[in-house]
Each structure stands twice: as C-alpha cells, then as structure tokens.
C-alpha cells in the first residue's frame, strides 16, 4: 500500500501542469464570485466611510446595516455559488476523465488529455451521479434520525458528552461510508477507463474491489483526506491569524490550494497503482 501511495504522489507531481490548470479553472470560478462580491459591496457601501472601515476588516455593524438597508446586496453572489459549484463539478468530471485515462496510458500530451476527457465525460458523469445519489442517501440515513430526534435525545440522555460521543460515532460511521463511496467511485471509473465495458459492470467491479480491499483503501482515503483537511486548516489559520497583507495572504492561500489539488491527484494515482491499473516499469 505504501508503495502505491509513494508512487501515486510521484505520478501526481509529475502531472503538475494539470494541477496548475485545475488551479486556474478554480481561480476563474472564484473570480466570478469574487468580482460579484466586490461589485456588490462597492455598490452598496463603496461611497460610505463605513465601507472604508469594512474594507480594512470585517465589521459586524457595517455588515448588518448593509444587509438591513440592502437585503439583496449579496443575492447575486448567493445565486452564483450553486451554479459555480455545479459547473465546476461538471468540469471536474471532464478533468477526471482526462486525468485517469492519461495516467493509465501514460499519455502526457494536452491533446490526448482533452480527447480522453471528452471520451469519458458522459460515462464518468453517470458514475458520478450514481455516487452522488448514494452519498445523499448515506447522509440522510445517518443524520436525519439524529436531527429529527435531537430534542428527545438531548432531554433524555444523561450527559451532553454522551450526545457528542453519539455524534462522533455517527461521524465516524459516516466517514467510513464516505470512504467506501469515494473509493468505489474512483475505482469504478478506473475500471471503466481500463476495461471500457458497461457502466454497470464498472460500478459492480468498483464496489467489489473496494469491498475486497476496504481496509487499505480506507487508510488511503483517510490519509489523503486528513492531509487535505490539515492543509485547509493551515491555510485558514495563516489567512486569518497572521495579519498578512491581503495580497500576500492570497498568494499563500493559492499555494495551499495547489497542494490540496496535488493531494487529490495523488489519491487518484494511488488508487490506480493499488488496483494495478498502472504498472511500474520495473514490475513488467
């Protein structure tokens, strides 16, 4: 497993231009929202001294007065965010198609990446959609009973520590479920990219392989997720805790985002190596 992880990381790093492309695509989507935020703020408080104060740092009174006077001040932003997410996820599926097939076939040209992305877009979209439904089902099954009965549980449970432990236990089960779904999702796509059979057979194969290797796959998922989460925390901490200049803070955050992109690519490449969809040259 460790061999696959190390190999996965080195493959992901060798595909670094792809990480840059993903970063730029994300940046473009971020810019859509960011420019809307900027123009909305400029429009409603741009000519006020309160706006000057707000531009130097978050001020609750300015923010609340702005929302009171202009309840729709951020409506455009709120409308854009779901669209941006959906659009990015679609592009993301395209990128996965290119990435997975390119890594498997060790094709490094831009044209083959695009071709692979287009070829696998629809099947990967269907696979992604299937897992999205499973993901929503898992979320509902695990969390809905707790949320619906929260008041009853709180008032009858002897201690809130137990209540939080209950939440932790559900959280761990949820993560284990997520691990299964995410690994199966990636493995199904790898399978499809390798064997090129039906989506259903790839889903079956993806699940079968994931269940067979559930423990190591969960370790891989947990490790990469944790790493990505730690990078996110460090990024937030640096952004809010050090009082850096806004541009310096922005650039630092971009570096963290590139690392997070590489972490995800490494996760994919690790799974590919682990299921022997890619074979090291020395292993021939």
């Amino acid at each position, binding site marked *: 497993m460790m061999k696959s992880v190390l190999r996965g990381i080195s493959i992901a790093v060798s595909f670094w231009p792809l990480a840059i492309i993903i970063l730029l695509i994300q940046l473009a989507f971020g810019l859509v929202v960011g420019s809307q935020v900027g123009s909305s703020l400029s429009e409603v408080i741009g000519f*006020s001294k309160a706006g000057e104060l707000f531009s130097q740092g*978050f001020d609750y*009174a300015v923010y609340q007065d702005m929302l009171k006077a202009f309840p729709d001040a951020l409506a455009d932003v709120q409308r854009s*965010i779901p669209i941006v997410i959906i659009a990015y996820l679609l592009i993301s599926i395209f990128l996965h198609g290119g990435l997975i097939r390119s890594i498997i076939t060790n094709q490094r040209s831009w044209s083959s990446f695009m071709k692979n992305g287009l070829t696998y877009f629809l099947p990967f979209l269907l696979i992604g959609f299937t897992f999205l439904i499973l993901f929503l089902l898992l979320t509902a099954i695990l969390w809905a009973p707790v949320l619906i009965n929260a008041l009853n549980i709180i008032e009858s449970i002897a*201690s809130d520590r137990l209540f939080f432990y209950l939440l932790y236990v559900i959280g761990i089960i949820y993560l284990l479920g997520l691990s299964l779904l995410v690994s199966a999702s990636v493995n199904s796509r790898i399978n499809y990219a390798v064997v090129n059979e039906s989506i259903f057979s790839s889903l079956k194969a993806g699940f079968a392989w994931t269940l067979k290797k559930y423990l190591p796959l969960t370790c891989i998922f947990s490790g990469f997720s944790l790493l990505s989460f730690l990078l996110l925390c460090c990024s937030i901490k640096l952004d809010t805790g050090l009082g850096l200049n806004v541009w310096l803070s922005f650039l630092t955050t*971009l570096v963290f985002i590139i690392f997070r992109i590489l972490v995800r690519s490494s996760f994919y490449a690790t799974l590919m190596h682990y299921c022997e969809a890619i074979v090291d040259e020395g292993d021939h």
Partner: protein
Amino acid sequence: MMYINIHLRYCFLLAALVIGLATSGYAQCLPLSTAQSERIADYQMELSLDHDQKMASGTALITWRNPSPKAVKELKMYMYLNAFKNMKSTWLRGTDGEVFGRQMSERAAEEWGYVTIDSISIKDGTDLTGGIQYVQVDGNEDDETVLSIPLPRSVRGGDSIVLSVDFRAKLPKTIARSGYGENNFHLFVHWYPKLGVYEQDKEGQWGWNCHQFMQRTEFYGDFGLYDVSITCDDSFTVGASGCLVAESQSEGRQTLRYIAEDVIDFAWCVSPELEVYEDSWQDIYIRLLVPRDHRGMAERYMAATKNALQYFNDHLGKYPYPGITIMDPPFHSLRNGFMEYPTFATAGTVYGMPGWFKGSESLAIHEFAHQFFMAVLANNEKEEAWLDEGFVTYYEDRIMEAYYGVHSSQLDVFGIRYGNSALSRKEYVSMRNHSSTAIARPGWEITGNYKGIVYSKTATMLKTLERYISRNKMDEMMRAYFEQYKFTHPRTETFVNHLKTYLQANYSASEVDTYLGLVNACLHGSDTVDYYVESITENSTTLNNKGALRMPVEIELISITNDTIRQHWDGSSPKTITLKDEISSVHIDPEQKLYLDLNLNNNSLKTTQTSFSRYILKSITSIQHALQSLSFLL
C-alpha cells in the same frame, strides 16, 4: 479556585465546617449582621423533598408587615407553579402551546406541576383555609396563579401578621425554568406561596400589586429574610439562594439550612450531577455548581463572575450580598437555565464550548448582573421590565467588552467577529417594524419583538446616552441611582427624575432637554432616527433624517484640498451645507455617539469609491477551497 467532590465530603464535613471556615483561602458565605432593606415579608420554611414524586412539602411561617397607613383585610399571594398545572393558565395560553420546540398539550399527567396549600392559619390558630380562593386579577378565569386570603380581622398600618402555611410544591417536567429533568435534577423557582407587594399605585392608592404569571413577566416581591431548611437525599448537591448556615445528615437524608437576607425571592436546586467549585472575590463567596461534563467551563464561569463583580464595584456599586451561587444545569435540563434569582443565577452551556464563542460567559454575566437590578433595585418587572432587563443588557455588554474585547466579546473565529454592543444594537435596529417600540410598558402590552424592545433598545439607548454625556458621567449618575434606590422598588419615573436631577446639576438647560428628551422618546415613543447624507454636489452637501427622532450631532467635512471642517447639526432636516472648496467627504456623527441611528452606513458619503480587494481575494480563495473540498468527494 478550589474543587470539592461533594460525594466524598462526609468524613470531612465537620472539619470543613469548624476548621475550614477559619482557614480556607477564600471568603465564606456568612449572613450579615444588619438589615439592608425594609423587611416586609419574611419566610421561615422547612421542606422535605420527595424526589420520586418531584415534590417538596412542608411548612412556611410567613411574617408580613403592613407598610401602609391603611388597615388591610386581604392578602394576595403568587402561586406561580400553577402556571404549569395545565394548558389553561395565562402563562401557557400566552404561548401557542409550544415552548422551546415542545408541544405542551402532549405531556403526561404526572409531568404537570402545581403548588397547593393544605392548610393556612394565623399564628394564633385562626384557620383561614376555608376562605382562600384563586382570583383572576388579569382575566382568564381558569388561571390559578394568584390567591386571595381574606383575613378575619384587619392588619393595621405598621402591624404584622404571621401565617402558618402547609403547602406542597410539585414540580412539572420542565416547561421553562422551574421543573425537573433527567437523573433527579430539580430546580425550584417560582415555587412557594409568596406574597405580592402591597403598595401605592401611580394615583397614590394603596393596594396589592400581584399579577398573574405570564410568559414575559417575572419578579415583583418585597424584601425579607428567608430562613429555609431543605431535607433531601444526601447524595444530592444542593444549591440555593443565601448562605448555607447549618447541615446535618441522618439515615441517608441531609438537612441544609439557608439564610438569605434582604432578598425578594428564594430559589434552590438539587442534582446528583453537579460538582461544586468555590472561590471568592474580595469578601464575596462564589459558589459554582457545574455538571461533570462541563468541568472545562468552571474556570471560565468563575473568571466571568469575578470580572462582573470587579466591574460593578468599579462602575456601579458593591455587590451587597455575602455570596453568589451560579448553577450551570446539565445539558438535558438546559431549559432550566439562563435565569436570575436573588443571590442565585442559572447559566447554560454545552460540552466542549469553544473558546472563540463567549455566549456562555455573556449569559452568565447577564444573569449575574440581574443581582444589581432585579434583586437589589427590585423594580416591578411585570409592569416595567426595562428597568431590569434593559440595564442588565447594557452592563452585560460593557463588562463583556471590557474583558473580552469590544469587537470580539461574543464571537471571534476565522476573521468573523462581533461584540456585545453591536449585537444589542443589531437586535434593535434590525427589527422589521419599529412602529411600536416604546420601552416603558407592561410586558403584556408589548407585542412583537420583546427582546428587541425591552433588552436591546434600552441597552442601545443607554449606550447612546453614555456616549453623549461621557462614560464617567454615566457612571456617576448610575452610582448615585444605585446607592439611593437600592433595596427599594424604583419605577420608571424614579429613574427619569433621578436622571433629570443629575443632568440639571451638570448640564445646561438645553442639554438637559436634549438628553432627557432622548430617554423619554425611547421610553414612551417609537420614533426612530436615521441620519443620512443625501448628496454631495461639488461644494455643497445635503443631510437628512429618515426618522422623526433627532439629536444634535457633529458633522465632519473633508474638502478636496484635504481640509477637515467640523460643524454642529441640531438634526433639523433637510440641512444643506456649502463650503468654499469642493467637498470630498461628509460624515455625520463620526464618533457614532448616536448609536440608536438605524443605519450607520448612510451617515457618510464620499466622492471616491472604496475597493474591496480583501473580500474579492478572500471570496476567490474560499470558493477554490470549497470546490476543492467538494471535488474530493467526486
């Protein structure tokens, strides 16, 4: 701070009482030697708790002194636990049947509570039981929260009467505050037959002020001495108003005797889950009762209590009681929390409360601050809640900001932060409708956003007054108010007259009119103020007000040549100012003295536009992080 495991204390009990009093590092709760108040109603109670039945029963010897020159032939008592007897009480009719997310009509018979008098007699043996009856002073003939006790002979002015009352107080499963929860948690508040207040009304007529229990109205009681002995299972931790002066154990039961002096009420709780933390501030004994799971909060509660004691001492007056008990209810009984009783307050938190959120400290300080208002400046909260809740919120905000940061006293995480005053102001200015926001009204007349009016508008009004007259003057005025009226029942007019006298001694006639006008407009009216800069046209600017309330303010104008010009504006609008040079920016009230202004953002206008690169860049990276997190799942 010292931690005591209450369950291991048996062997140390005597030693703790005899030696500990003299040698411990913190002050002890010792009853005072002199009365601080005119004691009108004294209660001597002996109670036994049957925790299986959720019932305390016993005898109360109630001594009432007639404070009027008139002979009194009837007594009136609060029987407030009957608010939770059934759905017909005025308290529950004031709700839509749902309290804190629970439908009350669905509860089992044994989950309701009540207080009932089995017998009542005068000390000489004259039985009054047959004559007592529930009366409905505020309508609703099904309400049983006020009891009338006709007397066979009058109590003359200045004379006293001693009643012996056998009663039972059965707790409900908690609806709000009073009640029982899981694992033998019991909180006895508004629980015993308690006398109303015999006083002169605004027209000077003597009579009982004894309202029914309503959802939004709380205390009004006379000062007195409470001597209360509680017998309960000896595995329970007990917390109560006053000082513990004696305790004994016998056959698995413990009897604890508490003395609370110069208080208007008495509350107590029992629970096997509570741990005791003791400390002191100067000679004030502090007792914290915290469930095991909230140990992490003990230090934070203790610091908050000491901060509040110190702050009040520096800015209002010395805490006049020998001790204070703060009880944090277990999580399952959270609806028992967040309330004040004399020398006893309930807080509330959850396991693992993060340090960046100070809601628990803020609430603990709020409930503690009530000691200075509800308990000592014991106004009629039913008719004029603002004199308590409004001042308490104002001081809560001040204390929180003094110790936890002006802009971050409530929340400070990931660059998002807010302080208490901003939150109070927001609760007032963000009200959907300001057409009925007069503060000084009885609780039952205030419809809509009660908190926004009684708590937040008052606190924001007081903050505005403070910014106009300066904090030092505000403190001087409030210190004198506290000193003069402590242990009485001040009314709205009492405070307003006090303020007027203070202002007259310190300010010009026009300033007195302005400041008093502001306070009266807020107390009795709904006028709002929203100053705004309407326009800047080259070298002239027009200012206006969207509301009908006005206060004089400073105007700061900056010309294109960067000269700063200050002008005074009395608030009469619209107002046009013309300068020699072109104007680059105008700022009404740049020091934000007029904190009541509904929108502070439109108080200024400038000809150049601010860019929000900070938020643009943060939005970009936040979106990127979010997309990256989501795509990990895909």
